């Protein structure tokens, strides 16, 4: 039976891979001798739930996980971080384990707290620290410390103008993650190896403006102009080292959960709702304040509120429905009418010059095969994800060209990468939801 190694690169972008390919000997060899496709992510194309969608073959609606934080009930403040406990559908490693096959799982977002697996598991970056039981078995934690020292779950203090420091930290994390990967695959039995390195995501968000001449903040004289390219070269070298340790005949998949694109600005979703009369505050804050804080402080007049929103790389909009939310105002019979009105209104928000930006407001029921848990009523891609959603209130404007949470140059794009070596087929595009069945198929199960 074939071993499968999945090398996950969070946010690795197909256009960048093609652009940098002449300087990427490892990926170049894999692509020339294998298959290279664009990998369509889920909606929203965001790390959680996208990786778990890949490894379960289930869409966010089926998983009931629509982002890093999800409503846990219909209260206004009831949001919870999506931990492994939220993912109840079997993963590919659960299914392989039932067949007696062993998996090594490293850094996959959505795996903290670690569940028992046949094999071993090192949680992703939602583990609060390495002081917690972030591995299965728990005793693996001590071995990791003895192998690589203090294990980096992520780059801390990522929002910084000190780009030199950030580049070094991202490289340090990648170096260590690949070193640990090599140690694990060399010392432990496995049939499936799957890892995720967060480095590409962190470097894109931190340095995209330095790389992209089309970015509004691009400085052609920046000393970090080639930092992303150089990071991809570094990553290529680390992948090459890892591949050299894999047993002959291993099927290699290099994948990402989504791509990246320049971020052109932000739209204040709650500022817009206030301006249009859909959201009413008891007192407008004197300084920028998070929506969650306004809710907790009782500053939202729910009796005069139709909808409120959450910020992030994409927007989430919730309607205040009578009989559903504690102080709902929207009669259920008017729900669809108001949802459509809001979707159209959001889609029509132009930039400051009055030019359309191509916003899309999506209904979960039209995106997913099932809708479980509590989804947002609308998922909003401002500027088709070239603008982020600003949730804070107190700015007295809706357009932003700086981030309310610190410097960030990039947003997510719907296509990631899929490289398979040896070659599978000639397809140029596939879905992230196919990967689960593909792995099982490669490992001897019937496809699909």
């Amino acid at each position, binding site marked *: 039976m074939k071993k499968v190694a999945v090398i996950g690169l969070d946010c690795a972008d197909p256009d960048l891979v093609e652009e940098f390919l002449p300087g990427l000997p490892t990926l170049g060899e894999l692509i020339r001798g294998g298959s290279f496709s664009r990998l369509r992510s889920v909606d929203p194309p965001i790390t959680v739930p996208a990786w778990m969608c890949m490894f379960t073959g289930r869409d966010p609606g089926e998983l009931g996980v629509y982002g890093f934080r999800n409503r846990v009930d219909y209260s206004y403040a009831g949001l919870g971080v999506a931990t492994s406990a939220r993912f109840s559908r079997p993963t590919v490693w659960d299914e392989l384990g039932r067949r007696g096959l062993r998996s090594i799982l490293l850094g996959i977002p959505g795996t903290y707290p670690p569940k028992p697996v046949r094999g071993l598991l090192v949680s992703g970056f*939602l583990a609060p620290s390495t002081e917690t039981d972030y591995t299965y078995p728990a*005793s693996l934690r001590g071995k990791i410390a003895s192998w690589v020292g203090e294990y980096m779950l992520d780059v801390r203090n990522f*929002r910084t103008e000190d780009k030199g420091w950030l580049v070094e930290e991202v490289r340090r994390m990648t170096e260590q993650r690949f070193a640990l990967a090599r140690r694990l695959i060399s010392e432990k039995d496995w049939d499936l190896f799957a890892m995720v390195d967060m480095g590409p995501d962190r470097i894109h*968000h931190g340095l995209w403006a330095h790389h992209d001449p089309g970015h509004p903040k691009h400085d052609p004289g920046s000393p970090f102009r080639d930092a992303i390219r150089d990071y991809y070269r570094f990553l290529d070298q680390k992948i090459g080292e890892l591949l050299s340790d894999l047993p002959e005949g291993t099927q290699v998949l290099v994948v990402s959960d989504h791509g990246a694109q320049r971020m052109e600005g932000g739209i204040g979703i709650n500022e817009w709702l206030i301006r249009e009369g859909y959201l009413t505050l008891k007192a407008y804050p004197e300084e920028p304040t998070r929506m969650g804080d306004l809710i907790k402080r009782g500053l939202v007049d729910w009796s005069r509120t139709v909808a409120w929103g959450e910020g992030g790389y994409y927007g989430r909009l919730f309607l205040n429905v009578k009989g559903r939310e504690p102080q709902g105002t929207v009669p259920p019979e008017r729900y669809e009418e108001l949802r459509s009105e809001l979707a159209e209104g959001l889609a029509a928000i132009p930039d400051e010059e009055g030019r359309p930006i191509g916003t899309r407001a999506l209904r979960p029921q039209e995106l997913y095969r099932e809708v479980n848990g509590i989804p947002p009523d609308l998922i909003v891609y401002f500027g088709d994800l070239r603008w982020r959603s600003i949730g804070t209130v107190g700015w007295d404007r809706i357009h932003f060209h700086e981030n309310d949470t610190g410097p960030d140059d990039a947003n997510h794009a719907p296509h990631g990468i899929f490289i398979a070596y040896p070659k599978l087929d000639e397809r140029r595009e596939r879905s992230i939801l196919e990967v689960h069945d593909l792995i099982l198929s490669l490992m001897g199960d019937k496809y699909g």
Partner: protein
Amino acid sequence: MGEKKAIEIDEGIVQAIEEHLSELSAGSVEEYVEAVLRERLLAEGFLSPYSPEEEKEVEQHLRDLGYLD
């Protein structure tokens, strides 16, 4: 990770775990039992994945990363 407390469980269960520690990928009976119970309690919502301080830290990290605001 909290303090450890001794409990008694059926000997047959202990033996089965001991015989299959390798397949269960655990270093000891205690390690396996604790992991299985933790998973079950988390799934039922009887145990929180984070302490309140940890949850605040994780949310702040997600905010710093741009996933939330």
